[in-house]
């Protein structure tokens, strides 16, 4: 997708290099933003349709679920207040209109603004997911080093560990880590207490399965790169083993992994939902499970939109990192 467009007007040709780069960057940002808004709109629509598909009266969801003893008057009142009596398309338009102006509405179940709830809970989940992604990458790079540079035994062992890690359920890993490191050894607290030490186990728990995936992807890439001409050339120049790995092989091998990172981030958010429940962390994951089962549409929409927005941002960041790391185009800027 290199920008091969010829200057459309003569003035374009005289633009300074910096201005041209700035132009390319703004075009890139614009395209990303437009795509992101499209995704958010689609996610909002899916949530609207999906919540309507859940059987039961939406007014009852507001009044505390199907088991509530709400009077017919109260139901009718809620139906009118929330506009459930209006045509679906009107409700959809109102819903989208509010979202477009940044109003996420009030949670049916908690009776508080969704924005407030997200403000309290989002930092927990984001910390978990972002720290998890960083730790996963660190583990993956170490694993790739061990499985390609340390002989056959280490390779077989690392490969076995990464396969196992990639299919280890979060909820089980979390329990095992609690039993071993919090209960038996007493190194870290079992239930998060807000301190840095309290984050160790939850972050490790979300990171390990993703690290398993990334490790295998990076390993495959390094094996590929080792056979290439540039690796041979670098070795001929007297590059050390670590230098070859860090400066050449890894840059090549990290690309598919970076492209996977946005997916991995989504997987980390899914993992966070489970891990928050294991470690009693007050994140959006736990709120999500209750919100979906209670048809709390504003809260589901809020969480879905935030996760989707985070995905879009991570995708853009992954794209940037990929450009920066890609050995084929140094500082190529927006392509």
């Amino acid at each position, binding site marked *: 997708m290199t920008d091969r467009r010829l200057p459309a007007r003569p003035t374009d040709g005289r633009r300074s290099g910096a201005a041209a780069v700035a132009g390319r960057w703004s075009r890139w940002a614009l395209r990303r933003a437009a795509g992101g808004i*499209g*995704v958010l709109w*689609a*996610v909002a629509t*899916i*949530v609207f349709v*999906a*919540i309507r*598909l*859940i*059987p039961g009266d939406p007014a009852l969801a507001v009044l505390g679920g199907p088991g509530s003893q709400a009077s017919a008057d109260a139901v009718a009142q809620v139906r009118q207040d929330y506009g459930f009596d209006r045509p679906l398309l009107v409700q959809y338009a109102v819903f989208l209109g509010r979202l477009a102006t940044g109003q996420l509405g009030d949670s049916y179940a908690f009776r508080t603004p969704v924005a407030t709830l997200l403000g309290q809970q989002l930092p927990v989940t984001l910390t978990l997911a972002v720290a998890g992604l960083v730790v996963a990458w660190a583990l993956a790079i170490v694993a790739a080093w061990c499985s390609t540079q340390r002989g056959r035994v280490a390779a077989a062992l690392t490969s*076995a560990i990464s*396969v*196992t890690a*990639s*299919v*280890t*359920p*979060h*909820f*089980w*890993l979390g*329990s*095992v880590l*609690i*039993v071993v490191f919090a*209960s038996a050894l007493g190194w870290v607290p*079992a239930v998060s207490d807000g301190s840095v030490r309290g984050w160790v186990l939850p972050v490790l728990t979300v990171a390990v399965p993703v690290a398993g*995936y990334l490790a*295998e*992807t990076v390993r*495959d*890439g390094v094996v*590929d790169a080792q056979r290439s001409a540039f690796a041979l050339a670098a070795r001929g120049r007297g590059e050390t083993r670590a230098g070859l790995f860090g400066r050449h092989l890894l840059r090549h091998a990290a690309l*598919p992994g970076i492209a*996977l990172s*946005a*997916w991995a981030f*989504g*997987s980390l*958010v*899914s993992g966070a*939902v*489970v891990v928050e*429940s*294991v470690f009693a962390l007050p994140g959006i994951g736990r709120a*999500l*499970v209750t919100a*979906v*089962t209670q*048809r709390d549409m504003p809260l*589901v929409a809020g*969480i*879905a939109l935030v*996760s*989707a927005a985070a*995905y*879009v941002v991570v995708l853009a960041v992954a794209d940037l990192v990929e450009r920066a790391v890609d050995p084929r185009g140094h500082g190529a800027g927006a392509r």
Partner: protein
Amino acid sequence: MSGIAEPSLPADTDADAATVRGRSERFRGGTLGPAGTVAAGVVALAVLAAVWPALLGGAHPLAVHPTQALQAPSWSSPFGTDESGRDVLARVVAGTRASLLVGVVATLVGGVVGVVLGVVAGLGGRLVDAVVGRVTEVAFALPLLLVALVVIAVTGPGPVPAMLAVGFATAPGYARIVRGLVRSARSSQVVETAVLLGRSPGRIVVRHVLPAALWPVVAVGTLGIGQAVVWASALSYLGVGTPPPAPEWGAMLADGRTYLLTAPWMSTFPGLAIVVLATAVTVLGRALRRTGALR
């Protein structure tokens, strides 16, 4: 993951006659490798446990013995007992059927939906491709668990909804892979040659494009079964999959959470079962792919 694009063109051209013979020969030779052989053994054991749980489990998975609650592992109950005195080994063995079934069915659902979407996108015009591309992109933006939870909210909790939920949530991944494979097969030399030879479009699609796209998906799907087992048990853990007291690994783990520090065996063994089965399926899938049985 990067292995998805592996099936190369030269291999495809002589595939027709050679594979059938080659496949049976390789199976006779048993070139799964040591890891693959062990994995095949574990999967065979799991299938046996799923078909005939009483053979391995011994005790009844639902039999309650309140006097023997929370017993540590011993000779009479190797995995210990849970809070109602039920034998954990018997429950782990009995849970194999649910997990294996969910894993296979969910992957089939995801694979079929994904293949249909991917083939439509790969063969269709630019508009169709763009629409399917957008749809999968949006599906990727939603965390898998959110999609699964919403599907279950619509259908109600239970094992079958869990299969559908995990299946639908994994479908976009398959769709993306198939689309890429169909596209590259479409522009391959084999297809170009077939077009030049004047073959009909239908025949080209069936003979050259679909096989090139489907076999890799079968391989990826084998790897996906392990993931599906894990996700389905996560749903049970969150309380929206298989309801208690049915023996299901995720539900057993949720159950064991309360007794995590006093009776860790209640959580350890069902979790270990998930990890062992999922790893075995994954390793077996890779070994099969390597031997060429599932290219």
